[in-house]
């Protein structure tokens, strides 16, 4: 997919993107293909973690699978935040 095919609200404009790639090539001394492959991997990993978190919070994914993808510390944080929000909602209406 070309950059132009990406929805305008989510695309980084072409000039900053090419400037970012040029900077990375020069600064990291990696070739452009390697940088783009790393960017794809990092981007996918980020999207994957976000989707797993969303599915877990929405109770669409079992805890064991969330732990396997995110680690037990992150899942414990999500559990605590969820419990805190439920307590807030309950207390807010009750007090």
């Amino acid at each position, binding site marked *: 997919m070309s950059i132009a095919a990406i929805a305008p609200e989510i695309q980084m404009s072409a000039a900053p993107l090419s400037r970012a790639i040029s900077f990375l090539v020069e600064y990291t001394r990696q070739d452009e293909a390697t940088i783009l492959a790393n960017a794809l991997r990092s981007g996918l990993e980020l999207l994957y973690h976000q989707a797993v978190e*969303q599915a877990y*919070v*929405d109770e669409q994914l079992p805890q064991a699978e969330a732990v396997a993808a995110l680690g037990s510390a992150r899942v414990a944080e*999500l559990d605590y935040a*969820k419990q805190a929000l439920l307590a*807030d909602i309950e207390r807010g209406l009750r007090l």
Partner: protein
Amino acid sequence: MSAAVCDSGPLTHLWQIQQWPAFAVFSEVHVANQVAVEVRNHVDLDQFMTMTSCQLALHPVDQAALEKGWNLVGSSDQLQDADIATLVLALHLMLPLVLTDDLALRRALEELGMMPMGSVGLLLRACAAALLTAEQLRQAIDDLFVHSTLYLSPVFRSFVQREVEKALRHR
């Protein structure tokens, strides 16, 4: 009407979504000076009483009191002096209700038997007190996740919306 101790989170986040009037559910809000200094970087705290009709009391928390607070919670790389000042102030004033959006401070408060409440709870309370309509509450919750710097991941937005709807139906 009641009193609460507040840290920087609810003051900042509710300011960002123009919901300071929700603090009117309290007659008094107590803030440690360390928190006030932090909040003033983002927010015009001098407008608080005008916008909320709630008394704002600022309190100095000295170094000795801070050290006692740190001894109570043990070492933590997630807590700052302003958090500990909030905890110490709540203990000193014997006010169990502490308004905070910080999960680490929330844990510490719960371990000491106190009652933390975040911005979401405060908005619900304002709705229960008829300061917000159900529709205004829905909008405020949405704004909290979109327009404020609330610590919570956006993945909680739909979860909170669902739970708020359930709570509104059952009240």
